[in-house]
């Protein structure tokens, strides 16, 4: 009985490996369900986000029914930000996660509860990195609305997740929320994440993922392919971008595979948590 299960696992492992390698290549050359050249993918993704930047936040709210706020709260909760930390939020253009981290560190209530050293509070740096300047501009605008325009703790940087401009071992935390799906080479992004993190630093990734629950999966597919592109048309005036979005979710590796990719990049204690039955998953790892 045990032998059978081992051999079945081995067999599926080999199968997984072949399809795993194939899917990796396919991620780099897939733009949703279309096949594109590797060089072209980042340009195409760039166009998508240039188009949707201004209505990105509204569309998030509409598509997820406001749930994306809870997901991001959970992500930041898991991170447990602390005063004095150097944090990097990649593909965080409009600043959702970054603002939440900022609030978590600077909230008066928290500071009252815990003895926070004011000096270390000054050292806090939250870098928001995005490849798309339009998304960054929206983020800067929102910062200005909150009165954080000239705040030294928030730094907006234009950069590529596959080739970050930060030093080795410089970050305490690295988050990427709904961004890793759009990267051409996932392994490069993971390797860069590993590079910039300090020893003990945490990697957290919030991403749309795969649903396995039988009936729910069908409902989710229905919603994704029938409703979302039309919502995109209605609200953002851009059906193709949202078609790309739902297709790219399907093309992204499932939870286990992605977790093993993270482990491959060198992270320890790799684990993931499914939210809403797998619609969203938070993967985490530690650099040791």
């Amino acid at each position: 009985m045990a032998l059978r299960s081992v051999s079945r696992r081995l067999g599926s492992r080999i199968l997984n490996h072949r399809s795993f390698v194939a899917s990796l290549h396919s991620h780099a050359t897939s733009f949703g369900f279309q096949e594109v050249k590797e060089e072209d993918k980042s340009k195409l993704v760039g166009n998508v986000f240039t188009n949707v930047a201004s209505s990105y936040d509204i569309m998030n709210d509409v598509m997820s029914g406001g749930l994306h706020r809870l997901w991001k709260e959970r992500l930041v909760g898991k991170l447990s930000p602390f005063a004095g930390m150097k944090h990097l939020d990649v593909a965080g253009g409009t600043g959702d996660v970054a603002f939440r981290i900022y609030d978590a560190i600077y909230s008066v209530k928290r500071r009252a509860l815990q003895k926070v050293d004011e000096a270390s509070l000054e050292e806090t740096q939250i870098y928001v990195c995005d490849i798309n300047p339009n998304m960054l501009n929206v983020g800067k605008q929102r910062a200005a609305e909150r009165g954080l325009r000239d705040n030294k703790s928030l730094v907006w940087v234009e950069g590529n997740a596959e080739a970050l401009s930060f030093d080795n071992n410089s970050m305490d935390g690295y988050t990427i929320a709904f961004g890793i799906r759009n990267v051409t080479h996932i392994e490069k992004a993971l390797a860069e994440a590993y590079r910039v993190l300090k020893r003990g630093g945490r990697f957290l990734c919030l991403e749309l993922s795969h649903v396995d629950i039988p009936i729910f999966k069908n409902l989710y597919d229905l919603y994704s392919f029938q409703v979302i592109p039309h919502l995109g048309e209605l609200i953002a005036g851009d059906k193709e971008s949202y078609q790309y979005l739902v297709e790219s979710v399907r093309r992204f590796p499932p939870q286990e595979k992605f977790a093993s990719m993270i482990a491959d990049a060198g992270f320890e204690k790799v684990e993931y948590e499914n939210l809403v039955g797998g619609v969203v998953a938070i993967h985490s790892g530690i650099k040791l």
Partner: protein
Amino acid sequence: MYRTAAKRLLGGGGAFTATRLLRFPKLRSTIIPSSYSSGLCTSSIGGNAESPMGGNQSVNPNQSDHTASSSSSTSTEEGPRRDENRKPRAEFQEEQARVLSASLRHVPRLGWTEEAMMAGSRDVGVSPSIVGSFSRKEAALVEFFMDECLQLLMDKIDSGLDLQNLIPSARIAKLIRIRLEMQVPYMSKWPQALSIQAHPLNVAASFKQRAMLVDEIWHAVGDGASDLDWYVKRTILGGVYSTTEIYMLTDDSLEHRDTWAFLDDRVKDAFDLKKSIQEAKYFAQDIGAGVGKSVQGLMNGVMQTMSRRSGGSTF
């Protein structure tokens, strides 16, 4: 019983976890999916290149990370091949233990809090972010301390305490005293530790640790001639230990003299209780014997009457 179970876990570790992890020799890292609820329950075991049990053997099986988790796990194909080229990576469990150990120094000043753990992590040279990944953060620190104390106690017992010349009640008192004295440096913050242990999320783990402690003490005392049940013994000792611990929180006497006097009294009470229970049992047995004899006599009389009435028919 717990000690033998613990030895079995540590010694025959490979066999035990094999059923949970699947027998892949070079398991580089295990990934375990969490439950679907948006609650907590994420758990995993950081692996290392050499053996599935490599790091775990140095860790007390009671570590809070080893909570029950679903047993599916995967490892990568590339993992085994790549490991030979990479230098061995620090085990997460070891790293956590190092950080928690360094944090204990900060506890008297900062309490059993994240701040203490972050200070500890800085001492070790690791980013304070790692504290965010400890399950049930403050509880991890408290449970680590409890495990350490238990280990220290076991070492002290093994390295030879003079227990033979003492009567059982004195032995118990001595062992409890040794264990409680380990908490003296943290006494100012111990109420916080107790409240952390009493938190619903942490009760299960802290209960298990106390059960192990109590079991260890009885084991060292040597279960003397006693008719009391295994559970009753441990419950009573658990009660004695807990009440003494709480008494100690408000004891200002020199070198906690009052606490040790209190302890001696409680142990005496417990043994008196044992005696009175024994007496009660004998009493009940005697009564039972007496009643039984009279009932038997009655039944015999009834039977004889019936047989005579029915004219001596065979039965």
